[in-house]
């Protein structure tokens, strides 16, 4: 806070909300950076949520035990891969594949970053969602079956609504993870400060706030304008996480536990 707030005094608002980031010529427009972070995070969630929640439903409710014994460790392994390693895989494998497969000028794009971020967030989402399903009392399911529901109807209409707050929690954590990821995006998004301008922006290079702080913090002189701005970007990141957390707590309505016994 102390390091970031002076930025507000030193730069007037019009420069701040300008659209060009080029610090060595005193162009400090942060809009491209915010745009970059948002594009990559939103897109990664569009990929990660269906896959993550779907996998959790499969593991928790549908798959036989034998399949689970293979699938769960696989998810854990994915969680254990360091983000730098995923970044390398991104540069060497994913990026050329994107370029050739989608006929793009370059494979270093927001989409590539989003795919990597999805891979990073999926294990978090899967385990938290699975825990949420596990916490739904067995009596709910049994009651639904007793009323004649099919397996799928039980999952869709009983278990998921009951686990609503846990799933939301998983989603929020996934978003937070994506927003804060630095190394993987720094290596594959191209770091060009472009601004969102329609659908083509997803397959264009972007520059995230996290990559900017990581790349530029080393060279700034302590106390300079650039230094304060970088801290201010950190404050903005923090505010984003705060908003996400507040949104999630305002939505989560914990289901009241009645007198039914929890079947262990």
């Amino acid at each position, binding site marked *: 806070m102390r390091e970031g707030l002076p930025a507000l005094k030193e730069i007037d608002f019009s420069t701040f909300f300008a659209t*060009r980031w*080029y*610090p*060595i*010529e005193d*162009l400090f427009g942060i809009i*491209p950076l915010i745009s970059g972070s948002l594009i990559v995070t939103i897109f990664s969630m569009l990929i990660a949520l269906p896959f993550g929640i779907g996998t959790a439903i499969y593991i928790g409710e549908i798959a036989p035990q034998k399949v689970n014994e293979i699938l769960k460790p696989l998810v854990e392994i994915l969680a254990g891969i360091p983000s730098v390693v995923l970044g390398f895989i991104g*540069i*060497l494998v994913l*990026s*050329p594949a994107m*370029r050739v497969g989608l006929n793009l*000028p*370059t*494979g*270093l794009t927001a989409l590539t970053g989003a795919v990597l971020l999805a891979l990073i967030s999926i294990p978090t989402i899967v385990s938290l969602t699975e825990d949420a399903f596990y916490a739904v009392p067995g009596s709910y399911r049994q009651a639904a079956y007793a009323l004649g529901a099919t397996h799928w109807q039980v999952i869709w209409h009983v278990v998921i609504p009951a686990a609503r707050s846990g799933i939301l929690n998983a989603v929020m954590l996934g978003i937070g993870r994506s927003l804060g990821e630095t190394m993987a995006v*720094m*290596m594959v998004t*191209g*770091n*060009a*400060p*472009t601004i969102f301008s329609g659908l083509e922006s997803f397959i*264009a*290079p972007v*520059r995230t706030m996290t990559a900017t702080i990581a*790349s*530029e913090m*080393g*060279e*700034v*002189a*302590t106390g300079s304008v650039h230094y304060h701005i970088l801290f201010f970007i950190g404050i903005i990141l923090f505010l984003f996480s705060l908003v996400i957390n507040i949104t999630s707590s305002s939505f989560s309505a914990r289901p009241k536990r009645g007198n039914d016994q929890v079947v262990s």
Partner: protein
Amino acid sequence: MEGKAFGTLLLIISFICLPACGQNKPVDSNNAGSEPSATYIENKGSDTLVNLALAWAEEYQKRFPEIQISVTGGGSGTGFAALINGTIDIANASRGIKQEEIDSARELGFEPVEHIVANDAIAVIINPTNPVEKLTLDQVSRIYKGEITNWQDVGGEDRPIVKLSRETNSGTHVYFLETVVRLGSKEDISIFSRDTLLLPSSEGIISEVRDNPNAIGYDGLGYVTEDVKMVALAPKAGDAYILPAAATVINGTYPISRHLFMVTRGQPQGIQQKYLEWIISDDAQAIVAELGFVPVLGE
């Protein structure tokens, strides 16, 4: 049960305290401009210079085992910032020091002194399958400003041009901006186009250029590998097109070459002075040539 809990607590507390006891930092390198350390030199800055600085450090330490030299990269800007903050002894730079940096140094009571330790050429590199062989500096400048966007316009195939660059903290970036994008003019304030990809390392640039037929990049001669293609450059249309090499840098025909510096706080003394003197001797300059740079004595 209680004893067991207490024992665990004790164990946890001792683990927390252990790292604090063991710290034994090497000789204090936080010079406030007074006596430098007697056996330790801390060297930081340009990524262009880092391999060369490492090779020098290793060779020097072999000959004088009592001296320890530590070398890190981070970019010329990072090196200058650290020199000004007082955390290192020698900054490596692939660009000259800026006026703001000189001013900051003077405010803190010292005069930064630059020593030329080698020369370097910046090579413009493209994918080996790209048919283009030569470009003028003006064409390169317009490509990087975003005015030329298709390889067709400079004699190549019908492909979009993907521009690669180092990050803004890199001396190589700043040098390229001043010499090529702005064509050496001090009044020109043009900058790289918005969609220039800023990659965090030279290796990132080589990797993308090697792989992507649309790519154009630039890098120090010492980093160019066999699997990318260098472009012959001419200062203006009508001049001869020259490929970068040690010979063309020394005889001045290659248009983008530069000095590489090591910068000290004031005039170097003691072991720093000896180290810098060794660096411009023939033995050390032989290492310069081995690594693909151009020796100082060639001038």
